[in-house]
């Protein structure tokens, strides 16, 4: 139990119960019209602009945005939150890619489909390793964030809170597939953004920017320093990390496949523009810590603690709802997209290439359940802080930026170069994570990967026929074991 909790455990359980019922009911209600495997996995490929924009925003506004942004502001000051906000560049840059993906692969299912068809089986397997490691890293960070938040605010045991949040997301994703995920994302986006604005306005009016500035300047002047070296490096690292996460992850590719024709570009562009200020609004709350004289026992709890200090029980309830929505909107998306990747690229691609649509539809549910259980097991020991866990995966994902982007636009990029770029980028990025710090892993990984793609394309150009990407699902999924 956490004796410093602001809410009573009973209140916490009540909020958990209300929102759990809402999300599961909505998941069932929205998902009941999903027909067939394509309906379950890709919402029938007919998602419109409003739902498309909201799901891109909600998925990218994670518990890491609402909890790690204040944490980073507390550790790195202005550049911590501004650097986090540059995560939106990934969404904005993915807008033209989403359009091209939809045009080149109108029948595609996963990002793995693209890598296999574009670069062959070796690159595909390396990519799958990176993608799945990242997906589980993100899933675990989200599950852990759920447990941490619930414990910090209500005193409910970390393991119980984490279990409830995972169980709810698995339940409604199982019931409604991507339709349930996208439908609930819309409501969750409205809740998150409205809640954040309320908190920000109350923080500005209760503390005041001048008081906040003066208190930080007195106690932690480095947080207001615009030339804070580690923070500036973090800014560029985070930019590349965000681009790597979005360019490679099936979370974003599955949406590019699921959106109506002509929607992808606009949806990702609008979502990126509206996402940009979110980490600043969530992050600046941490700058009120010196003015409010709050004792912060763990850096990743700073957001909820500030909200509770500012607004008492109401603030704690509000931040609980915001982060529960942020967690659910990302967890469900990641569960659905990861299960698509496991189902299409591992289950069918490697083990059951002749599986029928009915068999795949049945297996999809088991895969979602299995991923949920595995995530729960990995979340059980709370091993590291949220930001550290998240940034370990930066070395992996940043190595995929160039193979993906070059693969979509350059005919001459060759498979060996793409594979080497991912392997070397990841290895050297990881080494820099441990030897230098978490804030350089993505930066170095992306630089190595870029060098490899450019060098190998220049040394050994190979022509690729774009029409090979436009294959029917039966051919797409016929990978070799």
């Amino acid at each position, binding site marked *: 139990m956490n004796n410093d909790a602001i809410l009573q455990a009973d209140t916490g359980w009540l909020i958990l119960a209300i929102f759990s019922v809402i999300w599961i009911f909505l998941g069932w209600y929205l998902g009941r019209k999903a027909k067939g495997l394509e309906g379950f996995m890709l919402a029938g490929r007919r998602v419109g602009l409003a739902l498309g924009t909201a799901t891109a925003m909600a998925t990218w506004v994670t518990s890491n945005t609402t909890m790690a942004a204040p944490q980073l502001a507390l550790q790195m000051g202005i550049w911590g939150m501004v650097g986090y906000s540059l995560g939106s560049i990934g969404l904005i840059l993915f807008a033209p890619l989403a359009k091209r993906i939809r045009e080149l692969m109108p029948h595609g299912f996963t990002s793995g489909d693209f890598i296999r068809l574009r670069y062959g089986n070796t690159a595909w397997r390396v990519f799958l390793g990176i993608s799945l490691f990242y997906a589980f890293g993100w899933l675990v960070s989200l599950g852990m964030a759920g447990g941490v938040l619930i414990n910090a605010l209500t005193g409910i045991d970390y393991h119980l809170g984490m279990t409830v949040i995972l169980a709810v997301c698995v339940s409604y994703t199982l019931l409604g597939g991507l339709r349930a995920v996208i439908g609930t994302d819309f409501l969750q986006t409205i809740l998150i953004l409205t809640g954040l604005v309320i908190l920000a306005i109350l923080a500005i009016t209760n503390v005041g920017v001048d008081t906040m*500035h003066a208190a930080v300047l007195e106690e932690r002047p480095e947080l207001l320093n615009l030339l804070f070296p580690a923070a500036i490096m973090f800014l560029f690292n985070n930019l590349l990390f965000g681009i790597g996460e979005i360019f490679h992850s099936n979370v974003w590719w599955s949406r590019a496949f699921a959106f109506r024709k002509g929607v992808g570009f606009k949806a990702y562009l609008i979502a990126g523009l509206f996402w940009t200020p979110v980490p600043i609004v969530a992050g600046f709350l941490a700058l009120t810590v010196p003015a409010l004289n709050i004792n912060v026992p763990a850096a990743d709890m700073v957001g909820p603690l500030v909200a509770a200090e500012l607004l008492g029980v109401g603030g704690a309830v509000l931040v609980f709802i915001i982060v529960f929505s942020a967690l659910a909107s990302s967890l469900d998306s990641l569960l659905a997209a990861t299960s698509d990747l496991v189902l299409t690229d591992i289950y069918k691609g490697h083990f059951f290439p002749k599986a029928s649509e009915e068999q795949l539809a049945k297996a999809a549910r088991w895969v979602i359940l299995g991923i949920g259980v595995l995530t729960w097991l990995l979340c059980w020991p709370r091993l590291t802080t949220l930001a550290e866990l998240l940034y370990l995966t930066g070395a992996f994902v940043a190595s995929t930026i160039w193979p993906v982007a070059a693969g979509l636009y350059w005919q001459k990029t060759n498979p060996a170069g793409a594979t080497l770029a991912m392997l070397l980028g990841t290895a050297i990025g990881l080494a820099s994570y441990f030897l230098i710090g978490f804030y350089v892993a993505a930066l170095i990984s992306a630089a190595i990967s870029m060098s490899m793609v450019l060098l190998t394309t220049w040394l050994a150009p190979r022509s690729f026929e774009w029409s090979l990407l436009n294959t029917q699902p039966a051919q797409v999924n016929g990978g070799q074991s």
Partner: protein
Amino acid sequence: MTISPAALELLITASTLLVAVAPVILIILWFKDRKGGDLW
């Protein structure tokens, strides 16, 4: 080089305004899609 209180205020206020506008735009888009039969 330290950020001034005025610059910090501008950064926070502008960000908050943008976040406040986003849900309104999303709801308008939702009604537009719904009317045109383009929601799903």
